[in-house]
């Protein structure tokens, strides 16, 4: 049954309207299933925990209204993204999808197009608390074709990090290191400076070869930041954009890093455990990662983050291109279900779970950033130096990847080209030429080639 079909809607409307005089009739015992992607570690527990707290509040609200509502939350965590996405998409085709999924916002476009998810806007008032307190850009990131499909579960961004001690060793004063984030933002410190300083640090014997600039170890949204750094645009007026000049400079940057020896040719595909442990303990001079790394570095034995590491936006590539960062919020989404009342309850739970107090629990525990403006007034949040500084330094310049049905294909092709040029299996020109051919034959008129 398709809930957004006018006939069905009319029937629904009738049911809802007839019950106007009295309070809405809710089932007594409801089980809401929640599937959470992105890791089963303890730090992620509030992705589900927030829904459990919300269930308690909703039960109490129902009780105040004279109803006996009993909600059971049946949650499941997934460690592996691809297994999670396969489970959700194939589960939905088989009619066994959970009510709520927690996934990356980039899933909204393909899943909305296929009808796998339904807009939360069909169930909640977007003017109501706490939705009216969520940052506008995060709400946009949770929308597709102008309709709000989900609510952001967390915010984050992907900063650039440097190891303070090595910067001092190559002649930076403490004041200069403290001013680095501002210099990055103003464009005074660029990606060219990154390669230059990384080389200096490496030549001084402070880090081993290949550890001067130590990028993310596998594919991820982070790499789009370097495309943006060279003035690239991902989407314009709802259409994907391939900017050849920006893509070429972006690939060339990594090829130059390998050529100058500050980055390893075989860096991609390395073990993540090794990577975290190395960057947390000063084995690398400069690198980039996510705001949640703050928590991870502590686990890896670095108890003095602010004393050892400086962070800022991803530097621009020079010229007009600005420093930037990408926020990649996970979102609570509602899947298409036969029982519309259950979906309405699930929507209500998501709304309650997005309140600043509940969301701050997740933000602080997992070292993510808050989603609502009022979160900065919650003591737990404002008392945390990382949350405070990362929010003010990174979020204002944060953009997000577009919610476009074909973005996933563009992404894989972009990364294939980067990997091929990085590892030397193709020259930058060959990789770009192949990417162009592949984009044209795969996406046709759905992408603007520029």
């Amino acid at each position, binding site marked *: 049954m*398709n809930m957004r*079909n006018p006939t069905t*809607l*009319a029937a*629904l*409307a009738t049911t*809802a*309207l*007839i019950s*106007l005089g009295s309070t*809405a009739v809710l089932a007594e015992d409801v089980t809401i299933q929640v599937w959470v992607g992105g890791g089963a570690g303890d730090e992620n527990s509030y992705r589900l925990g927030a829904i459990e707290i919300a269930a308690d509040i909703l039960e109490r609200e129902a009780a105040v209204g004279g109803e006996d509502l009993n909600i059971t939350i049946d949650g499941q965590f997934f460690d592996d993204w*691809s297994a999670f996405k*396969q489970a*959700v*998409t194939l589960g939905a*085709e088989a009619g066994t999808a959970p009510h709520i999924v927690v996934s*990356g916002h*980039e*899933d909204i*476009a*393909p*899943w909305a*197009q*296929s009808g796998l998810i339904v807009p939360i*806007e*069909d*169930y909640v008032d977007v*003017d*109501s608390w706490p939705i009216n307190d969520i940052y506008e850009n995060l709400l946009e990131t949770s929308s597709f*074709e*102008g*309709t709000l499909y989900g609510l952001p579960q967390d915010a984050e961004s992907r900063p650039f990090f440097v190891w303070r001690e090595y910067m001092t060793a190559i002649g930076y004063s403490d004041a200069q290191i403290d001013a680095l984030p501002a210099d990055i933002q103003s464009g005074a410190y660029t990606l060219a400076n990154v390669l230059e300083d990384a080389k200096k640090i490496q030549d001084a014997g402070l880090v081993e*070869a290949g550890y001067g600039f130590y990028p993310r170890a596998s*594919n991820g949204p982070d790499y789009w930041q370097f495309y943006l750094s060279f003035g690239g645009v991902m989407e314009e007026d*709802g259409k994907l954009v391939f900017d050849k000049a920006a893509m070429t400079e972006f690939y060339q940057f990594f090829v130059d890093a390998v050529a100058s020896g500050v980055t*390893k040719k*075989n860096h991609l*595909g*390395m*073990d993540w455990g*090794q990577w975290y442990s190395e960057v947390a303990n000063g084995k690398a001079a400069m690198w980039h990662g996510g705001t949640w790394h703050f928590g991870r570095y502590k686990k890896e034995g670095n108890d003095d983050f602010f004393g050892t590491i400086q962070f800022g936006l991803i530097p621009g590539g020079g010229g007009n291109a600005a420093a930037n960062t990408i926020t990649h919020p996970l979102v609570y989404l509602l899947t298409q279900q036969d029982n519309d009342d259950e979906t309405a309850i699930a929507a209500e739970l998501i709304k309650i779970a997005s309140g600043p107090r509940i969301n701050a629990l997740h933000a602080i525990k997992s070292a993510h950033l808050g989603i609502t403006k009022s979160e900065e007034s919650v003591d737990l949040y404002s008392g945390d130096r990382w949350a405070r500084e990362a929010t003010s330094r990174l979020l204002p310049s944060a953009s997000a990847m577009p919610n476009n*049905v074909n*973005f*996933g*294909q563009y*992404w*894989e092709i972009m990364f*294939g080209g980067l*990997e*091929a*040029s990085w*590892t*030397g*299996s193709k020259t930058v020109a060959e990789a770009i*030429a*192949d990417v162009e*051919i*592949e984009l044209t*034959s795969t996406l046709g*008129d759905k992408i603007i080639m520029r």
Partner: protein
Amino acid sequence: MVNTVTELTSDRAAGAPTGRDTGPKLTRLQQIGNSKYLGLYLLVPAGIFVLMFFLIPVILTGVFGFTNMSTSTGITGGSYVVSRSSMQALEDRHDLGEIADQINQIVYTIDEAGLLAAGQSGVAANTLRELSSKFSGNNFEGRREIERAIKNLDARPANTRAIKALAKYFERSVLNTRFDSKEEFLAAIDGFGVSLTPEQQDALIDVSYTGWVFTADNFKRMISLPDTKKTLLNTLFYVFTTLILFNVGFALVLAISTHYMDSGPSGFFRSIWLLPRITPPVLYVLMWKWLAWDTGFISAILGPFGVEPKNWLLDSPANAWTFIILINGMVGASMGMLIFSSAIKAIPTSLFYASEVDGATRGQQIRHIILPQLRFPILFITSYQTLSLMTSFEYILLATEGGPGGATEVWALSTYFKALNNYAGALEYGYGAALALVLVVVGVVLSVAYLKLFDFKTLTAPPKIE
């Protein structure tokens, strides 16, 4: 089951001379047992398995390969939706910008028809009265605007769902509404006052349908992509190098060398070579990674000799291929070893004794006795392992993920990536199926070629002496 069948068969043999008419009445099972179709009945379970796990998947792969099925089209069918991007496509692809503008408007109008329909559905009269008096004839650009207007009524509905339901009665646009059938969709467009010619209707259907359609574009795309040829060459290199060096070559070496050992040591060595096969793949590959990582065993051993630690597995395409072939070969060799060993055991020992009396060397025994007798097992292992290697990608996925830079991406892995692995969840089932279909065709062609090459008919001909 086997016992029952044996009993039934022997019953039939015993009862046959007495004649059917005079014998006791047969049960249904006995009738089946007596049937001349017994052989077919016995094949039914196997037939079901072949149907379910081979024929249906192959047929579905063939069908899916000619579609544009993906996560965004869904598998079970689509709907018809007017959206901002579909209207953009109407303008770009069909040059119908004006129609797009006409349809692409969210309009909510407080009119008599809406008020009447809402009233008939049981909306409180005072709510409708207030709505009519304050907003009659008003247009709202979007859903949020009309919902805000309803929320501000004194006699507003009590809950959000009721507000949304009430707003729906005044919607005079199809934007972002999903329709299950073409007819409903076109009727709704017509109902909102947009009249279309049949050609315009077709164009609108083309851009608004969210489900999959049949197309041969997958194959055009496959041919046009520069990486297709590289993946094909990678696959041929991977399959035949692993096959010749390990799955057949090294397996023969193991089988023959253990044949000339005493039974104790030979059993021990064969068991050792079985270990890679019985180790769970994830763990097995992890051990190779421990060996090859820059903090691993090879780097640790070479460190004192001044060799910089590095990721040996991903250092260069040559390194990656060496590891991939070793990882697969160590697993693959064990199967050939078992088959060849048992085939060698089946060679009458008198042949070996006779050759030794004639003064034959080990080399001559291998060349003139063992290898000719192993022709059939070698055919079997070659065909079986070719197909198996062609479709296997799990060890490559676990070890290099096709890297560095796609250097070890084989056809099956590429199929997996396209159909079931995308960072943004955009899985391309149709294109993946088209890639898989190529594997099916190549597999069948190679099997036929092997049968011809090894002269299968002669191998299976009954011995002339009988």
